[in-house]
Structure formats: C-alpha cells, structure tokens
C-alpha cells in the first residue's frame, strides 16, 4: 500500500569490495539503491569467504550511516582533556585544519622528525603501505600500534616466523583429525579468516575431527568442542610442555625423521648452551653416526644424523639439542602441570596420548602426485594463551607440540600462511640462515621477523623496539615510555600524535593511565568516523572515509589473508561504494596532501617504488602528483599487467592468479631451512639486551631469553593477596570486533539481548559460595585498586577461579549513545607496568586477580 506512493527505484546496483569490520578482509558485494547502501552480502566467488559474512560484516553500512559520525574537521576549544569533558568542538575548514597541522609538522620535521607519532591499526593494503612510506619519508620511526599490539599476535607471529617462515598460521582443517585450541576461538568466528575456518571446522567436526578447546571460558568455542578443557589462565605452557614430556619420555611418540631433517634438534650443544661450531666454517655441527664424527649441519657427506645422544668430542660429552630438550621437558610432569593448570594429570596424559596417536607419525598422503607426510593433529593458539607475561615462551611451547610430531607445514598439521609463492606476479620462499634456520623472504618479510635478532641499541623509538630484538612490535612499551621517558633514557619527547583507526583509550590497559600518557603529547590529530574516546582527546578531529567510502588496493596480504594450504592465490580491492559523507576524506590521501605541503611526496614515492617493486612504466615518478586511484592503478598494472588496472579490479572485486601448487600449499618437505626447537640465538640476543640496558641503567627483564622453553608463572599467578581470588579474563564475541563495533546499532542490539555480552561471567558454584546470584550488581576490584561494576551472570561454562568479561564494552564517550556505559570495560582492570610486559614479545599480561563483591 505504502509502496505504491513511493517513486520507482532509479538505481539498484551491487558493488564488489572488501569488508573492514574486523581486521580480516572478506570479499563482499554491496547493494546500493538510489545512492544508499542497503545491504551487504558475501561475494560468493571470493576464495576468502565464499559468500559468507559474519554479523559484523552484514552490519557494516550501519556505522557508515551512524548519525553520530564525525563529518567535518573540528578544532578543540576546551584545552582541558578528559573523559566526560566536553572538548567544545568548533567546526573549521579542511584548509584551516591542514594549514595548522602543516605548520606543526614543518617545525617538528626541522627539529626532530621522531617527535611525530602515528598510531593506527590500518596497516594492511594500500593505506597501510602508503602511510608507512609517508612516515618513513617524514623521518619518524614512531609507529604505535595501539591496542592492536597490546595483546594480539605478540606471542604468535614471531613463533610462526621461526617455525613456518611467515607472519601467520592456521591448522590444516582439511586433513586434521584432532585439533587442540589453546586460547583461540578458531572456527567460532574469531581470529583470522573466520569465515573460511568456520565452514571448514564445521565440516571437519561433522566428519569426526576431534576438537579440544583449552580455555578458561567455554561459552563460544568451548561449546562446540568434543572436550572443553578449562584451564587456569596463564598456564598453557605448562600443559603443552607436560604433553610434550608424555610424548617424548613416556610414550616415545615423536617424529624422529622430521626432527632430524627439519629442526635443529640434531645440532650439538656446548656446555655454555651455544652451538658447537665447526672451527673452519663456524657452522653448527651435527653428529654423523656412520662416520662417528661431527660434521657441519649442511655437509653433503653426511651418513646418518644423530638426533639423540651425547657424543665425545674433544674430551667432552656433547649432547644434541634434542637430547637437552627431551631431558629438559622431563620436569614438566603431568602431575606438576596438573597443580599449575588445574587440569587432572590423567586428562593431560590422555590428551597427549590422543594427540600423539592422531598424528599418525609415519603416515603419508599423495596430493597431486606428490607423496607427503600426513600428520592429522594440530595445536593452534592465539591471544588467550599468549597475552601473558611469558607469552612468547608459551607460544613456542604450544608450537613445539606440533613440531615434535612433525605436524608443521604438512597435510593435517599446523600451516604457515604462505611462506612460499611460486605464482606470478610475486615469488618468495624462506632461505636458510648461516646456521641453517628458517628466514622468511620477500613478501613474507614485510613485517618484523624475530630472526635473526635485530640489533640491540639504546632506544630511539618510543616503543623501545631496539630493546626487543625478537618481538614483532613494541607498542606496549610505548605507553610506559610516554609515562616515564627518563626511565628509558629517551632524549626527546613526542610533540604530535596522528591517530586513525586505533582507540588506545579503550583497547589497551587502564584508560585513566593511558589518558595521562596521551595528555602528555602536546598536539593530537585524530582521523575519526565515530567520536571515539581517543578522538575526544584530540586537538583536531578530521572526518575519515568509512571503509565503504574508500579505495584500497590489495588489502588481503597473502601471508595473512590467503588461507594456508591448498587453495587459490587472489588479490582483492576495497572500493568506495558511495562518496564520503559530509566532508570526510580518506586519511592516507590527506597525508599525501600534507606531503605536498611538506615537500616529501617524491621521497615517499621512491620508497614505495622499492617496497612495491614497481616496474616501469608504472613506477611512481617523484615529480608527479597522482590521485589515490591512479596510485592504485599503477600498482595493480605493474603487478598484474596493463589490462589489470584498478578499473578491472573495481569491476571484478578480486583477481585469482592461480591455484596453489603442492609446493606452495605444503611447503615443509620442499624446503631445507630448519626450525629452532632449541632457540640458541635467544642466548646472544638476551646477552645483548642485558649489556645495553645495564650500560644505560635501565632495569629490564631478560630472563626469558633462554634456549629451552619453560612455563613460568605470570604476575597474577603468583600473588594472591587474600580475597583477590579470581582471575579475570577477556574473550571476543563472534558479533563484535574490538571497541569499534560496540556502537553499531544492529550489533549493539545483539549485545543487549545476548546474556553473555554485557555481563560479568562467574562460575555458578563459585558465585553461590560468595552469595552472588545472576542479575546481582557486582564490583570487581584489583589489588591496584582499579575497579569495574557489572551485572553478574552465573554460568557453568567458566573456570571456577575465573571471572569472564566479553568484548570491549563500557564505552566512555558520550557521543556513542548506544554503547555509552553499557557492559563492562575489561581493560580498566589492567595496570600499566613494565613488569607485566613480556620482554620477548612485548605482550601485556592480560589477566589480573580480582576481588568480587556484591553491591
């Protein structure tokens, strides 16, 4: 009836693009009717998600049309900054904003370009590559990942780099029959490639793959497991090492061939813990059983290599690395691990046994005519397990479970995301270091690999990355340095912060402390879509284009967003479906506008030509000023051919460049570089850090630089002031992403109705003993005196020693009416303290002890 009086539809089109509601990059098609986006669907042809989109992806356009969006440049007129302080915004023109910023930037660049800091999680694809080149051209090393590097992949990426030779990894669900998840929700629409993994895991579970979920919280991933193994937070390494101990020392189940060929297990180790090296070549030695003598690891004359044993060399009994490893894990008995993890010793033995049996050591499979080892057992881990003080060691311990059964980069095991590409236009493959260990190359080297260790020197960057030779990023230290620069002997202080797509006031640790840190930076420019907490602290706010309003070439970096194992190579595009609302502009385009004013465009182009390896005639000419679209166009044409310019991508959404060959899908047996089961280079790296920090008089923890992996208690494990008897942990919900989505109308509605979203989850028995019932208002308080309040929800699906808080709620910016003060803000409970940061991976320990009381 009402339809008949409305005018007929003029325009009804579908535009292909790439989602950006979480850090993944699903292919989408977007329906625009009469200029308005009305619907988002998965692109059924895109190999990343085959037409699937999660709740967030479906809801994406609602944040574009959010009536509270920032649409104009604004200047703060209230110099006082703080939560619930009205910044008294005053609308200004773009020109005025850019002129103000340029003046400041010019001054900074002349003085010391390091005084400019850029904080963003917008690190992938065209935007990512271009702002990084801009920053390099400007001359600042100060990139601050914000929440994104606080407790994200800290103890993951370095481990996948060391073991797979690439940035990311995932279990090979196609062939896996036994999957253990340690603190990650693979398959439950979290972590990376959530659409792909959700479908594959559902298939695999139906086909009988056994899923074991080790997690203090069982409401999402744990609920789909065959066995949910509730664990005390921060103790995953104890479990993994006990399982390894059972496999090596009780059951004798391990892949000798794999360990011999593909790890440094056979390397001979001196008394001081270093490799025994060949006098002439300096190469690490292995023992040749046939010749009864040591030889350099890559000596072609090797008879048979000794994996285990002690060998008399120059009057000393010299053990192999594997021997030491095997003896070392003996201390991790299931019994001792049981008292650490709260998992019964029998269960630990059984899990180890099942894992070892499931790995089917010795079995093979033929794929595309090539015979490959088949190891259908894998352990996967992410944020939950490694967001702890000793996160890197934990990551290694879990990955070593895969290593000892040979389940690395072979069918059924744990795979790296594309360490090798033999498909045009890009080729890369890891190479062996002088010591024979895996070193990523080419595309796979775009982020910071942990090996070889980077040079340790007095810190110049505010994230103190110089003191973190094996970490992927140092972000967590940034806040520490801002709060106390003298402590780290930094000779300058940031003058200006440009922040975009990062919300440190919500996603890092205690926001009041973070606010102190931010307030110390004299001038802050925020690009924003919504008026986030962080944007509210800015001196100038600039309206940024929403992801459905902007262009990004190649957002799906293949070492992260192309599934591991069999599948396709593909390259995507994110494109504007509608023009930016209000006066919004893509933030990196604005940076390049500033580059002209600063005279650094040419320098940035030169860097880009190198990074992207752009070929003539498409390389950027330093004298030219290309539009954002033309920059994408030249890049695409240079890589994919003159007929595959940006228009082609806009029309087709993505380009499939080929189907992966077996050598690309299951790389292990086609590669020679080895996996360090014995992390010898940590010893030197640690010594370096010790030396430099001692020289500077910086107190710095170097204990974790050890060659053999251990479990160590995190701060919350140790102290236990009476009354503070619960650990508090955080977990993601499938329908929310970080802080960003909490204000999206459709998703906020889900939070309102979902019993778990806005609540404090307490184990039913534990709560009853405390006299707390579902629905009661409770206060959680840490020893440091940080506290949050929320509504208790009693559940059977949580460890009795744990209080669970979902997502990133409890927003503090009044502009976000739908989420303002709704739910509980987990991060408020986390103290900023150097002692709580993993010195290897820079992860902030994300569990604390709390006292829970009824209000």
């Amino acid at each position, binding site marked *: 009836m*009402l339809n008949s009086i409305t005018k007929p539809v003029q325009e009804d089109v579908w535009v292909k693009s790439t989602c950006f509601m979480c850090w993944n990059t699903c292919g989408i098609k977007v329906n625009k009717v009469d200029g308005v986006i009305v619907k988002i669907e998965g692109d059924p042809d895109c190999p990343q998600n085959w037409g*699937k989109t999660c709740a967030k992806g479906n809801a994406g356009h609602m944040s574009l*049309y959010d009536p509270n969006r920032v649409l104009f440049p604004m200047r703060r007129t209230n110099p006082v900054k703080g939560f619930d302080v009205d910044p008294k915004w005053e609308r200004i023109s773009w020109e005025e904003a850019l002129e103000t910023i340029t003046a400041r930037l010019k001054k900074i660049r002349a003085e010391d370009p390091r005084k400019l800091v850029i904080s963003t999680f917008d690190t992938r694809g065209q935007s990512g590559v271009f702002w990084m080149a801009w920053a390099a051209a400007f001359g600042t090393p100060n990139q601050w990942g914000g929440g994104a590097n606080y407790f994200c992949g800290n103890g993951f990426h370095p481990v996948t780099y060391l073991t797979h030779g690439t940035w990311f990894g995932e279990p090979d669900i196609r062939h896996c029959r036994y999957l253990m998840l340690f603190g990650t929700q693979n398959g439950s629409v979290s972590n990376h490639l959530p659409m792909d993994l959700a479908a594959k895991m559902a298939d695999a579970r139906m086909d009988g793959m056994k899923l074991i979920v080790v997690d203090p919280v*069982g409401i*999402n991933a*744990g*609920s789909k497991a065959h066995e949910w193994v509730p664990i005390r937070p921060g103790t995953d390494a104890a479990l993994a090492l006990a399982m390894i101990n059972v496999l090596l020392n009780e059951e004798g189940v391990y892949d000798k061939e794999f360990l011999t060929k593909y790890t440094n297990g056979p390397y001979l180790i001196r008394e001081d813990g270093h490799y025994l090296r060949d006098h002439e070549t300096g190469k690490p030695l292995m023992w040749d059983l046939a010749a009864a003598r040591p030889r350099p690891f890559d000596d072609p004359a090797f008879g048979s290599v000794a994996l285990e044993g002690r060998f008399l060399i120059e009057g000393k009994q010299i053990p192999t690395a594997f021997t030491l490893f095997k003896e070392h894990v003996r201390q991790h008995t299931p019994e001792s691990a049981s008292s650490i993890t709260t998992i019964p010793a029998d269960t630990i033995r059984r899990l180890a046994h099942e894992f070892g049996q499931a790995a089917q050591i010795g079995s093979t499979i033929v794929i595309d005519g090539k015979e490959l080892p088949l190891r259908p057992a894998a352990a996967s881990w992410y944020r939950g397990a490694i967001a702890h003080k000793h996160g890197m060691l934990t990551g290694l311990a879990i990955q070593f479970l895969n290593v000892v059964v040979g389940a690395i980069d072979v069918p059924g095991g744990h795979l790296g995301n594309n360490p090798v590409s033999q498909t045009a236009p890009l080729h890369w493959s890891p190479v062996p270091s002088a010591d024979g260990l895996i070193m990523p190359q080419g595309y796979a080297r775009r982020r910071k690999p942990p090996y070889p260790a980077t040079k340790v020197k007095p810190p110049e960057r505010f994230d103190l990355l110089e003191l973190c030779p094996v970490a992927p990023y140092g972000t967590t230290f940034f806040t520490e340095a801002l709060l106390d620069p003298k402590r780290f002997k930094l000779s300058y202080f940031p003058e200006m912060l440009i922040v975009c797509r990062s919300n440190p006031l919500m996603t890092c640790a205690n926001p009041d402390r973070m606010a102190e840190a931010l307030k110390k930076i004299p001038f802050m420019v925020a690009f924003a879509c919504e008026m986030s907490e962080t944007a509210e602290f800015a001196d100038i706010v600039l309206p940024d284009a929403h992801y459905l309003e902007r262009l990004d070439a190649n957002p799906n970096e293949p070492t992260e967003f192309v599934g591991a194992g069999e599948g396709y190579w593909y390259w995507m595009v994110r494109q504007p479906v509608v023009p930016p609302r209000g006066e919004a502009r893509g933030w990196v385009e604005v940076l390049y506008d500033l580059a002209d004013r600063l005279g650094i465009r040419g320098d940035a182009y030169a860097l880009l030509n190198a990074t992207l390896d752009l070929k003539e005639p498409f390389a950027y000419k330093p004298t030219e000023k290309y539009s954002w679209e033309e920059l994408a166009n030249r890049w695409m044409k240079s890589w994919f051919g003159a007929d595959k310019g940006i228009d082609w991508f806009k029309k087709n959404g993505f380009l499939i460049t080929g189907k992966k060959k077996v050598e690309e899908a299951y790389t292990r047996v086609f590669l020679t570089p080895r996996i360090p089961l014995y992390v010898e280079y940590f010893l030197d790296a640690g010594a370096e850090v010790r030396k430099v920090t001692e020289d500077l008089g910086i107190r710095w923890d170097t204990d974790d630089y050890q060659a053999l992996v251990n479990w160590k208690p995190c701060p919350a494990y140790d102290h236990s002031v009476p009354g503070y008897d619960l650990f508090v942990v955080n977990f993601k919900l499938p329908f929310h992403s970080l802080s960003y989505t909490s204000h999206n109308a459709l998703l906020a509605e889900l939070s309102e109705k979902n019993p*778990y979203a806005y609540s404090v989850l307490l*184990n039913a028995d534990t709560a009853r003993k405390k006299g707390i019932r579902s629905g009661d208002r409770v206060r959680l308080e840490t020893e440091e005196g940080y506290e949050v309040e929320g509504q208790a929800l009693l559940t059977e699906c*949580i460890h009795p020693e744990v209080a669970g808080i979902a997502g990133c709620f409890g927003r503090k910016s009044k502009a976000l009416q739908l989420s303002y003060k709704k739910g509980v803000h987990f991060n408020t409970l986390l103290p900023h303290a150097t002692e709580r940061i993993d010195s290897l991976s820079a992860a902030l320990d994300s569990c604390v002890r709390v006292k829970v009381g009824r209000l």
Partner: protein
Amino acid sequence: MARLGMVIDLARCVGCDACTVACQTENGTPPGIQYAPVFRKEVGKFPQAKVFFLPTLCMHCDDPPCMKACPTSAISKRKKDGIVLVDQDKCCGSKACIAACPYGALHFYEKKSGMYGEKITEPEEQALKKFTPGTAQKCTFCSHRVDRGLEPACVVTCPTNCRIFGDLDNPESRVSQLLRERNSVALRPDAGTDPSVRYLP
C-alpha cells in the same frame, strides 16, 4: 506444488548471529524486530557444560495456528510453496497471531522509529517504507528472493552452512536427504503445527 522448508544443523551452528543480522538488513526490519534470533541455553554442569545454540525463524507451519487465529484473514499460506505470509494491507493489528504462534515468530511493528534514536538513517528510511505501522510482521522465507531463484539471506550468510533450504516434498532435495539420513526434531511438537523448519540435533 512444493513445500519449502529449512533444515538447521545444530551440530554445525556456532551461535554467531550472522543469520539474525543478515535477515535484518535483507528485510530492513524495524528496530527491535528480529525474524531470526539465535537462542541459547546452557546444558550440563562444569566442566561438562556448554552453551547450546538454537537459530530460529518462522517455521512456515503446515498447519499454522497464526493463520487460524487471525480475524482478518491477513495470514495466508502460498499454494505453490507453502510459505506463510502476513498481508500487512489486511492486518488490523490485533496481535492474535503473535499470541497464537508457539515460536514467537510474529512481531508487532508499532510505529516508525530509528535504530540510533530519533534520527532515522537513510537505509532505514528506505527500508521502513515497506512496513505499515500497527501491523504484524514476520519472516517471509525471503519469498522475494525465492521468487527470483535465490536462497534466503540467512542461509546464504551462515558461515557454517548450517541452514539448508529446499523443497521438503522433493525426495531428491538436500533437505529431504538430510531428514532421511539423520534424526531430526521439530520444535514444540506438542503444538501440532507440523513446521517446515526441522532441526538436526
């Protein structure tokens, strides 16, 4: 003559709510109205405990009590495929159907409002044109898509492929096959509705 139906494989579902939201944007439903909510229930005792997810929608009952309750004959069952639809041009807003539906599949759309409050966004403006205030609304099995040969939005989006759509009367269809191969249950069998949505536990 067909009988369109859905089989929902509960073993696959991970409770991600993608279906709920996909349905909302596909149909542009007014704030607060969800045709396809996912319900949850805890089963078992720690540590043998888990959350059980139950995705729902209108069951497109073979014998729909909503239709029998409706005084205005606004609810009908399509002859060609069994889809149960509310004709909002006939509905007088009595809400009888809402009470009569055992599954909570009917919703009352009271008056125009926006998800973000007073200001109604452009997509909402477009979508709300399709809704008559003061009438009952419910899942249409995406009849507008089905009529174009497409599957429902909630089916297409589901990351675990646990919603399977097809003709229950056609023995060759996936849905029929699944119902033959695996045990299935209907919700609220006591209500005698003979629903066209079946669940594989």
